[in-house]
């Protein structure tokens, strides 16, 4: 489990990028839900934490594909693959991320540091 930040440090409507490998984006929706997905868009190198959060979806800042934060599914091209989701745990007023053990869907040209 990776500590992200104190719950109070991530207001609703905001996102946080964790410099993990690959980076993870944590979102706090306007409805008060917390989600975590891989930060890199599955289409090209762009940070989803910089994207537009609306409801349970984030729109990639580069090309406007939208990802459902609950499932990682993408709504329309250019992205073709879902983004990997991670579990979020809140304990003692701190946000933690449980990284997925599935392989990530990183865009071409972007590799993890270990790969």
């Amino acid at each position: 489990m990776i500590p992200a930040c104190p719950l109070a440090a991530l207001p609703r409507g905001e996102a946080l990028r964790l410099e993990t490998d690959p980076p993870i984006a944590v979102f706090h929706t306007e409805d008060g839900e917390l989600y975590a997905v891989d930060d890199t868009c599955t289409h090209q190198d762009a940070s989803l934490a910089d994207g537009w959060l609306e409801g349970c979806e984030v729109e990639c800042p580069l090309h406007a594909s939208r990802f459902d934060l609950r499932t990682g599914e993408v709504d329309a091209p250019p992205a073709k693959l879902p983004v990997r989701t991670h579990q979020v745990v809140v304990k003692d007023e701190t946000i933690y991320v449980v990284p997925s053990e599935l392989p990530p869907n990183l865009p071409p040209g972007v590799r993890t540091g270990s790969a």
Partner: protein
Amino acid sequence: MNSVAIVGASLAGLSAARALRAQGFGGRLTIVGAEPHRPYDRPPLSKEFLAGRMTAADLALEGDGEDLGAEWRLGVAATGLEPGGRLRITLSDGSAVEAEGVVIATGAVARTLGSELAGVHTLRTLDDAAALRADLEAARRLVVVGAGFIGAEVACVARELGLDVTIVEAAPAPFARALGPEMGTALAGLHEDHGVRLICGATVRALTGEGRVDGVLLEDGRRLEADVVLVGIGARPAVEWLEGSGVEIGDGVLCDAGGATNVPGVVAVGDCAAWFDPAVGTHLRVEHWTGAARRPATAAQTLLSGGAAVPGSLAPPYLWSDQYGMRVQFAGHTLPGDEVSIEEGDLASRRFLAVYRREGRTVAVLGIDQPRSFTRWRRRVNEPVAAAR
């Protein structure tokens, strides 16, 4: 409508095919493409593909197993459009396609300096990019003619590859017309920061060499040595094939705000099309990826409804560019005299967000390495300033 032919098999054509099917069109669909390749994504050609970080397979626009139920006619160019009850498209192999509806998506062609010398390149297609890459690998000195986005991105990649790079630009600053002189000067600084020589206010008299280019001669008499020359001086709409068709042409195929041309049953999308933009009050040919991806949905609606569908408001033009690891993003449309203010960062650090305003409206936003605030500001373009505050 029982049959549609899409002329052009790049992003705009593919997006039109997807939109037609998504909107319930179940008829015969033919897609004509002049290049032999399946639809591929062009922006990486001057970025990751040229740098060798992406392969041709990575550029595929179609999803795995995606089937649009279309007949693909790749490697043949359209040579004419004959109007009538059924529209007839003649092709370069002598055959023809007939359809009730036509989507014109033939894109644009790179402007050249008319040189036949080896080592002189333009960059528009996958084949162009592969040829340029191969030439750069063996070269020491690159001269880029034109400091637009293609030129700037190729200069970046060539620097990465260790080449000596000079950019020649006719205007007093890069992007002076599109972004205004102040922002153009700020972008010029990016090149200088990274050891690329930028010569502004200079025009090319001739490319020199015997068989292969060896230099660029400027009007002021200066001569720049070059092993490779990249000509990035813009593109013109690929519309010659429409001559005599009755389709009205200006700077591109003239369309209304829903993509309809003056010929019934014919719409146009992508780089070849100049849609009427009510926010600007004129026809505007927009050569951006986002327009090619998004506007075909509107054009498909126009086509399938026989022009009865009322188009929604156009999203402002949007573009991005990657230069020296910086992400450049721009949305909207500027005119000389727009008021420009820096809302985040500062010009000196080359990381800033600039907002353009005109008559009380936010008309455009430029971000250099400010993706998060750009995302927010982009949504305010064309809104009244008071509401945007």
